[in-house]
């Protein structure tokens, strides 16, 4: 197993290098001068020369690329022209918002998608199966931005005044303040250390922070704000997971050992959950793993619709403002995350199916 992981890691190096090259090239090819994009009318030639020199933009492209690789290797993703902040700082600020949203969406997809897929397979060709598959087909075909807008309309306007009313945008209601859990706990964390970064990262996720700080009012408010965007974002992965669970379960349920288990007198529940479901998990691991990548793409649209300032939104803003640093830094982080995710999916096969001998 260790050999396999190492081999996969080595094979990922050319891909990672390619990602770095692609993001560097894309950011440099964005039309327009970043100085003029940032400073607008104030961008005189003298000011721009100074700006380009300060940010190393007047150096030859190969040198800029070399500097870029060196900085990334040291965990430095550079600075944002627009926000005048290190990218790492922006990542720590924005990533928790997207992370919380994606996690909630994934939770929805798994908790709803898997049971629906199992029920559809067990009751194959029944009305439950037909309705589930119809819904799954509609789910994968639905534009996430349209669903988000429609949900906001229904739950904040049509259902206004009922117990189902939900906020149409934002993360918290006006007037609510969150205090980082580490301050409430009286933890002594020094700024700049790893423990501070980690604590700060967690505390920016409103749901986690409110649980850790036992602030139930904020928790309730944060959850109600999270439901609509998470549900909108979860539709496509939920439908994919339901479809995949159904087809994997149908394949397993038709095998001889399932018939044997039934013939031995085992209960239907036991056969489905213990014998069939475990073996249907393998293809599911792929779909769930890859769905996480899709969630990041969908987050750009969901965050735009629900006015959330996460990674997707800042990346979009960075592109429109020609902020090289943001485009490079965030794209690299997302792509590396994607590569690592693929590796985890591959490795998880070995754990889920002992027949697979990876090394």
């Amino acid at each position, binding site marked *: 197993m260790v050999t396999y992981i190492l081999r996969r890691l080595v094979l990922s190096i*050319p*891909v990672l290098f*390619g*990602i770095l090259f*692609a993001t560097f090239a*894309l950011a440099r*090819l*964005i*039309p327009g001068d970043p100085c003029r994009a940032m400073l607008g009318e104030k961008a005189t030639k003298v000011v721009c020369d100074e700006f380009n020199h300060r940010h190393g933009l007047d150096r030859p492209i190969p040198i800029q690329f070399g500097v870029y690789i060196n900085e990334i290797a040291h965990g430095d993703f550079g600075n944002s022209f627009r926000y005048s902040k290190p990218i790492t700082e922006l990542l720590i600020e924005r990533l928790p918002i997207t992370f919380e949203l994606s996690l909630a969406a994934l939770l929805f997809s798994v908790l709803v998608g898997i049971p629906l897929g199992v029920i559809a397979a067990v009751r194959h060709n029944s009305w439950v199966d037909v309705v589930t*598959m119809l819904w799954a*087909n*509609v789910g*994968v*075909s*639905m*534009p*996430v*931005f*349209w*669903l988000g*807008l*429609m949900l*906001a*309309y229904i739950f*904040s*306007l049509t259902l206004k005044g009922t117990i189902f009313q939900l906020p149409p945008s934002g993360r918290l209601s006006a007037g609510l303040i969150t205090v980082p859990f580490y301050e409430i706990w009286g933890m002594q964390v020094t700024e700049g250390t790893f423990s501070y970064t980690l604590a700060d990262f967690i505390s920016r996720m409103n749901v986690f922070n409110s649980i850790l700080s036992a602030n139930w009012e904020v928790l309730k408010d944060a959850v109600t704000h999270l439901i609509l965007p998470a549900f909108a974002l979860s539709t496509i992965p939920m439908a994919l997971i339901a479809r995949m669970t159904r087809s994997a379960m149908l394949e397993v349920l038709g095998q001889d050992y399932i018939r044997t288990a039934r013939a031995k007198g085992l209960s239907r529940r036991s056969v489905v959950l213990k014998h069939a479901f475990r073996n249907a998990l393998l293809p599911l691991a792929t779909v769930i793993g890859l769905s996480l*990548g*899709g969630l*990041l*793409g*969908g987050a*750009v*649209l969901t965050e*735009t*619709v629900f006015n959330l300032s996460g990674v997707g939104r800042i*990346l*979009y803003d960075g*592109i*429109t403002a020609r902020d090289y640093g943001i*485009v490079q830094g965030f*794209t690299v982080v*997302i*792509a590396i995350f*994607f*590569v690592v995710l693929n590796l985890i999916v591959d490795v998880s096969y070995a754990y889920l199916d002992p027949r697979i001998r990876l090394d």
Partner: protein
Amino acid sequence: MTTQTVSPKKLDAEALSLDSVSLWQITRRRLLRRKSSVVGMVILAILILIALTAQWLAPYSPTLSMLDADPPQKVEKRSSPCIYALGCPKDQPQHIMGTDGNLRDEFSRMLYGARLSLMIGFSTVTFAIIIGTVLGALGGYFGGWIDNVIMRVMDVLLAFPSLLLAIAIVTVIGPGLINALLAIGIVSIPAYARVVRGSVLSVREMDYVSATRALGGNTFEILFKRILPNALTPLIVQGTLGIASAILDAAALSFLGLGAQPPTPEWGSMLGAERNQVFTAPHLVFYPGLAIMLTVLAFNLLGDGLRDALDPRLAHTS
């Protein structure tokens, strides 16, 4: 109890007729047997019909403001649907889906949008299939460093969430419908390249390929006449499903303002332009989104049906 006797002649005829059934006939039969595929084909047929006849079906030009209509109409911006058959007063002009923020007839724009969406789907997938097929075939056939370089580039493209990469490419080459199509096409290439490469790898060492080589067949003939026809089936399935995701991605880019630009009647762009009015004029958001969903659904249902119909493991169901 009666027994039926079948003459050997009849049996032979049936066997012969079975033998002469082509893959496409079997596929058509299986497709028509699947209700979901039939639903997909019906939706698609309606969409194609609408796209082809939009200029006759649409009561107004998709870019015409009602102020410039002949005679000019007194309608409000983002007016609600007005259908005479449903009790709308006759003194008001009929607008089946209302008017948009620029006083254009929403129904006419929706009809023309079908044409654009189908064009987007087919053109991006055609572009991606052509480039993907050439790259996949070259990589699979020649192997070695050519294959390595091509597949590593494909791996890099696959390392980005497709929509994010498409957004980044559009930003570089500039917003606009054609550029958005190009970006979605580029993002889609790896899927086709992988399918073709896999098919080429599976047949390039087969006897009939070696025989063609021994008979003096050149690389072009071997690749395009002997090997690539084997990749046609997975390519058709991938292409049909690819059209669905291309339409979704194009709509997303237009929604973000990076694809089709106003006043082009593109569903994603129409939706994006009116998104802030969702609470006051929800119909202007509802109809374009519904149309996108139905189009994507049609291609997904057809793609799923084709995948099953072309799957040799399901041969017994034919």
